[in-house]
């Protein structure tokens, strides 16, 4: 892993006028006109819900009695021995119902769907975690549900496809383009523009047109709010660094948000370095990309000279996306957060290490944050206090991991 070099980027063409839905120059609403009324309706509904005690009470009840919040904080000393002796705490979003942080946002948006009088939700999914969470919320609230998933991802995350179907969702395998997350989003947007009267597009991360990046962050900020109080109790002080993996960036925004005003706390996002930058097969947007527009928002984007999207790559489907949430772009350019990347080999090492030292099987996405913690711990030294967002559990990744470590042939590593 390495520190990102200075971005080769030129500033985005749009002037950074202060207006709603912008994070500095990033964000915005680059969408077909047909979707604007739905985005305005959603913005109105979520702003109304934000000040409605009934909405807050209903969501709190679901968090407590359905999701299992607050999620616990676990100190991992045996793992931390490989992080330069730093103290390491994991925020256990993997213990939420459905196995990741995704449920936080999904339950809230499903409640909004009901409030808007819509009866159908659609979603995109990469690793399948957001799709499973959406199918779960749809089952719970009696909504019709269609999940778009790249064909490549349906193959590497077959277990999650089965879970979504068990929950009553229709899963559409998207075969064109790179057949991964970005193509699933294209197809979901096409569905939405066709069925927008009855359908809410339940976007699963902090990307997309305004108000999605801000709204999804707000539905996940509970992660950081809980973790901040918990670590003050457990360790008696704020952490030196908060570390999270960044695909679209929802778990990272969720845990970062409460710490943004704490200037002494480093916020560190770990992107997927894939097979390494020189291979071209990665999703390290901040190390290689420049500002552009994809899926409704201006943000850092992997693109060629003409502005065509360049396909990303990661061993973890959930980080395999060529752009990143616009607020991350702003946190990065404004210097408040740092972004690094971990390559597949480092990630698999961290993945195995957490299994073997702590008896916790992380999602491959979250293993990127663990690889980051190993490096940052070594840099900072034994006095460091690190908080890592363990955004999901690794059950879904068993096939990938077992293949990687040769366990399917009866070999051991």
């Amino acid at each position: 892993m390495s520190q990102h070099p200075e971005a080769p980027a030129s500033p985005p063409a749009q002037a950074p006028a202060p207006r709603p839905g912008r994070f500095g120059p990033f964000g915005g609403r680059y969408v077909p006109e047909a979707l604007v009324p739905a985005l305005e309706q959603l913005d109105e509904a979520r702003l109304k819900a934000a000040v409605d005690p009934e909405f807050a009470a209903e969501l709190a009840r679901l968090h407590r009695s359905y999701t299992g919040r607050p999620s616990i904080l676990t100190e991992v000393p045996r793992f931390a021995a490989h992080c330069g002796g730093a103290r390491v705490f994991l925020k256990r979003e993997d213990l939420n119902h459905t196995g990741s942080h995704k449920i936080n946002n999904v339950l809230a948006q499903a409640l909004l769907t009901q409030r808007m009088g819509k009866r159908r939700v659609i979603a995109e999914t990469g690793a399948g975690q957001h799709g499973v969470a959406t199918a779960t919320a749809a089952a719970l609230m009696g909504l019709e549900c269609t999940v778009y998933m790249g064909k490549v991802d349906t193959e590497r995350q077959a277990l999650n496809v089965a879970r979504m179907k068990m929950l009553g969702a229709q899963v559409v395998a998207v075969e064109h383009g790179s057949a991964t997350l970005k193509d699933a989003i294209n197809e979901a947007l096409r569905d939405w523009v066709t069925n927008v009267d009855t359908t809410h597009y339940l976007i699963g991360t902090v990307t997309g047109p305004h108000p999605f990046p801000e709204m999804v962050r707000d539905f996940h900020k509970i992660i950081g709010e809980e973790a901040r109080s918990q670590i003050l109790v457990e360790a008696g002080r704020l952490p030196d660094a908060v570390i999270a993996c960044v695909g679209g960036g929802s778990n990272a925004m969720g845990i970062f948000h409460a710490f943004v005003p704490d200037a002494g706390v480093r916020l560190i996002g770990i992107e997927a370095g894939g097979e390494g930058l020189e291979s071209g097969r990665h999703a390290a947007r901040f190390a290689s990309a420049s500002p552009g527009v994809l899926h409704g928002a201006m943000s850092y984007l992997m693109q060629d000279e003409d502005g065509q999207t360049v396909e990303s790559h990661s061993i973890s489907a959930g980080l395999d996306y060529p752009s990143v949430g616009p607020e991350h772009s702003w946190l990065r350019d404004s210097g408040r957060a740092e972004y690094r990347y971990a390559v597949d080999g480092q990630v698999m090492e961290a993945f195995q290490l957490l299994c073997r030292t702590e008896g916790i099987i992380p999602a491959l996405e979250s293993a990127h944050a663990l690889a980051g913690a190993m490096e940052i711990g070594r840099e900072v030294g034994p006095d460091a206090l690190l908080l890592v967002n363990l955004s999901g559990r690794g059950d879904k990744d068993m096939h990938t991991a077992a293949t990687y470590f040769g366990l399917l042939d009866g070999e051991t590593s």
Partner: protein
Amino acid sequence: MTATTSRGVGEVLARCRAEGRAALIGYLPVGYPSVEGSIEAMIALVEGGCDIVEVGVPYSDPLMDGPVIQAAAAAALACGSRVDDVFRATAAVRAHGAPPLVMSYWNLILRRGVDRFAADLAEHGGAGLITPDLIPEEAEDWLAASDTHGLDRCFLIAPSSTAERLAVVTSACRGFVYAASTMGVTGARTSVSGAAYDIVRRAREVTAQPICVGLGVSTREQAAELAGVADGVIVGSALVRVLAGDGELSQRLESLRELVAQLAAGVREGVREGER
């Protein structure tokens, strides 16, 4: 705001109106089946009777397009079509007597630089831009560049547009207002939706600009129906489908001319609103 510019589509639309008919606007993507082939096909559109050619720029993530145009765009990119090729196409279309309007997703224009794209377009005979994923609120740079370089700017309206949105969007347009006939993506449909008439009627309440209707039109009959209410009829996927057919390119171009001639007859059969 001026209703058109000297290199814009206003003159052609006015001429069609004077002839008591709607204009026919045909869409094809650059680079399909090849760059040369696509330019020949655009010329065939003009020869067949298109009044305006919509020059599509292939994009990796065409979220407003249905399967036919998606496949053509993917094929165009796979065979190495570049944004630069667009300007060869616009120059060729202009040389054959029709104004070319470029239809492009926004990131391709951002990447080149909005002003540079506009300058290149103006230099190569372009009439303006149709921007399917750009709303006027995000278009500050394009509003300025289109004024500087004298280009038309066609923003879209849709059946879901509220009266307030219609006013905002149509007042930013120059050349014509692009009305999506239905909610959804590009692609031929069996009938013209009632929403098409409704959106044109509602738009006329807030603007005096010409209104052209697209999405789903594939036949002479549909063209005639829409010509009764709209100032122009836009046909895309149906033309691309002919180009995607079997046989030699020359045969497909012949089929393309035939379809365009049918559609051109259709826009002349429209019953104007007052006469219905």
